[in-house]
């Protein structure tokens, strides 16, 4: 592989709330190469959506990207440097807000959200919204843009696109609306599409159709995707490489087959074990004990140690970084768990700690009741 299309290094996004600083994304790094689908999985509150909004610099107050580098096709979407006084300030080559708006968002990087109804304006026709988007972003005149919009609608499998062009979003079913959003995302032929749980709200049959369509279109246009989801089945079906997130950190990175068949991190294994399977009967589910802790005050050491079945004393003290755990010659497979030899911090000799099985439910009591995401 050549240079990555998108490269994220040590990205940190924090929310400054009255209760304290929420470290929603805490130092994640990953690459997206041309033409691949990269998965970003985790439970709610893991920081998946904040990570994707950060890539487009769409984080609003009280949230702020406080550190890290985001490079896209050689341009700096985000990057800081120290000025003379030791204060951090944006680097000169960092794209300005208007460059982001006019050149990057929509044209180079498009995003598809989970709820298609909220992304479409209910008082304008579907075709009109699509046409306007194409008109502005591709500098076409209205008639050409209309033609293009109809072509895109047909491309994503909307029946009778000429007549449906003039219909309003409420006249479309959920799956059809999601298709419209995919048409909108593809309309400017971006190099990267960020899909934020686009099929979560859909029925399995519709989800299947959409996944199939995305795979076809991806082959045709050679677009890269970042696919955000909590569903390991979707990951298994469409992703090439996967990043597993837990509490603001990426804890395992691997090619999809390795992730499922040579799982390195106990959290990933626990996630896979806790799922009921459609293809075989599982007698007993093994749920992950407890709930994800708050990102305001994450556990010391390994953030998963409080729920980890394999936790030992050393996990409480050592904060593992992502290290390459792959065999020589194999594809890169990184994981952040000290039980592997690559860490050598004395895991094998460390006494096991009691996970908070008994108090798991009470430990999860939140004062806000909200989720960090």
């Amino acid at each position: 592989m050549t240079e990555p299309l998108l490269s994220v290094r040590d990205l940190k996004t924090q929310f400054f709330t009255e209760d304290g600083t929420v470290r929603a994304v805490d130092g994640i790094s990953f690459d997206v190469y041309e033409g691949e689908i990269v998965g970003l999985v985790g439970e709610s509150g893991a920081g998946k959506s904040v990570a994707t909004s950060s890539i487009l610099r769409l984080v609003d107050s009280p949230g702020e990207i406080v550190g890290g580098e985001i490079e896209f096709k050689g341009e700096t979407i985000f990057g800081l440097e120290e000025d003379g006084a030791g204060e951090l300030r944006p680097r000169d080559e960092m794209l300005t807000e208007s460059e982001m708006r006019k050149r990057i968002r929509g044209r180079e990087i498009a995003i598809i959200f989970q709820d298609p109804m909220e992304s479409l304006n209910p008082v304008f026709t579907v075709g009109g919204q699509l046409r306007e988007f194409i008109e502005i972003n591709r500098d076409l005149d209205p008639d050409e843009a209309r033609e293009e919009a109809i072509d895109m609608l047909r491309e994503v499998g909307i029946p009778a696109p000429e007549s449906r062009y003039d219909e309003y979003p409420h006249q479309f079913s959920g799956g059809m609306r999601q298709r419209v959003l995919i048409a909108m995302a593809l309309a400017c032929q971006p190099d990267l599409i960020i899909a934020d749980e686009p099929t979560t709200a859909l029925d399995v049959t519709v989800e299947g159709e959409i996944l199939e369509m995305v795979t076809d279109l991806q082959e045709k246009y050679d677009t890269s995707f970042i696919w955000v989801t909590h569903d390991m089945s979707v990951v298994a079906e469409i992703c090439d490489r996967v990043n597993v997130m837990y509490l603001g950190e990426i804890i395992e990175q691997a090619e999809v087959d390795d992730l499922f068949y040579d799982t390195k991190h106990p959290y990933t294994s626990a996630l896979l074990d806790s799922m009921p399977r459609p293809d075989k009967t599982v007698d007993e589910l093994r749920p992950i004990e407890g709930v994800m802790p708050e990102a305001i005050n994450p556990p010391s050491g390994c953030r998963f140690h409080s729920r980890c079945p394999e936790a030992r004393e050393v996990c409480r003290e050592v904060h593992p970084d992502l290290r390459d755990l792959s065999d020589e010659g194999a594809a890169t497979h990184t994981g952040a768990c000290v039980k592997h030899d690559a860490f050598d911090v004395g895991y094998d000799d460390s006494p096991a700690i009691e996970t908070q099985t008994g108090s798991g439910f009470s430990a999860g009591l939140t004062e806000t009741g909200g989720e960090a995401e």
Partner: protein
Amino acid sequence: MSGVGPAESDPDALLQVRDLCKYFDNDSGLLGSVGLDDEFPYVTRSSSNVRAVDGVSFDIKEGETLGLVGESGCGKSTLARTVLRLLEPTSGSVYFQGEDLASLSGEPLRRMRKDMQMIFQDPQSSLDPRMKVGPIVEEPMQAHGMLDEEGREARAKELLEKVGLDPQHYNRYPHAFSGGQRQRVNLARALSVNPDFIVCDEPVSALDVSIQAQVLNTMEELQEEFDLTYLFIAHDLSVIRHISDRVAVMYLGNIVELADKEELFENPRHPYTRALLDAIPVPDPRSGGRDELLSGDVPSPIDPPSGCRFRTRCPKLIQPEAYDMTDETWRNVVRFQRAVKRRAFEETDPDALRGRYFDDGVPSGDAGTLLDEALGHIQRDEWDDAEAILTERFADESVCATAKPAYEVESALTDGRHYAACHLRRDEAVASAVDESALDGAARLGTPEADD
């Protein structure tokens, strides 16, 4: 348990649902059903019903979990609410412990509610944010006059512990709990009146996978401890497969297949069940792709297709007896008919269309003539005429359109009964509730309004 054969009383059945229908009036308001016409008498009254649940029968035995699965809009939740008499059934009956709920009302019905409880999908909106958890759990007991104040408090605390919460949370408000914990509060509330039967309407679909597993495990433990019977509704087949003993698959207001869990998942006999099972992504990157996906949308329940409701999307639509095409050719005709109906292409040249849709065989004889006629209409841009020919002369003549299927087949893997509403099962059926005269008349024309 199924609509097939005599509805003999199963002595173990806690709940028997017979031919239950629930229609909603589509025209609300005083003038809702009034339409204007350009001929005398200028004003017409029409009413159309949304047939949300249309002739559903099943039994639930004591202590078992019946899973109910289907796409959104198929009537799962309406069925659950009608079974509990939260909605008044249009027709049919629901026998709970031998009494017909459909005929009860007022105080006797209210007293029956003590034995049947419900858990809803959204744990947030089903708890009053201004009530503390303790009183929330006590409220049903109070409504049914159970225990005194102290006894209720003690029982509430005991139940909170049983569902995996800390009894000290008695004085907390729902907002202090996470989604999974709120669903546990709902469980405790449902259990407080010591019910026999709980309807769970998508209880875990709003929860994260790891939390989902915790709640599912708790529900199974409680079922064992309190000897509960569940009607478990979900759209997620993996969850259904995990928790159910038997599974019913619903499509557009009808149950299309009902069998023991293993039997249904390993030996599905209805094309819709097969399509559903095929559509689920499997958490295994080596599982390979899927065969064929369903296309098209679920038809409107206001005017559902005649016969088998799934026929407009079914990949296995049966060829009308009047024609003698090969299987491939018939598939091509069906595919072409559906494409025309959806206006899925712009091409109007007959030869190009033949090449695109009939590359491995153009039908001959009558069928060929009809197809040529339809292609001619398309060439002249008369899409509606082309659609009418293809629909009325091909799709609507299938036995799937003329007779409503209802068969019981031999179970291959378990000893339970296996109901499959599909005409493909006609020859292997051990029992059938299909009107034979309708089958004989399979070649007659479908009613004009019953197109797909």
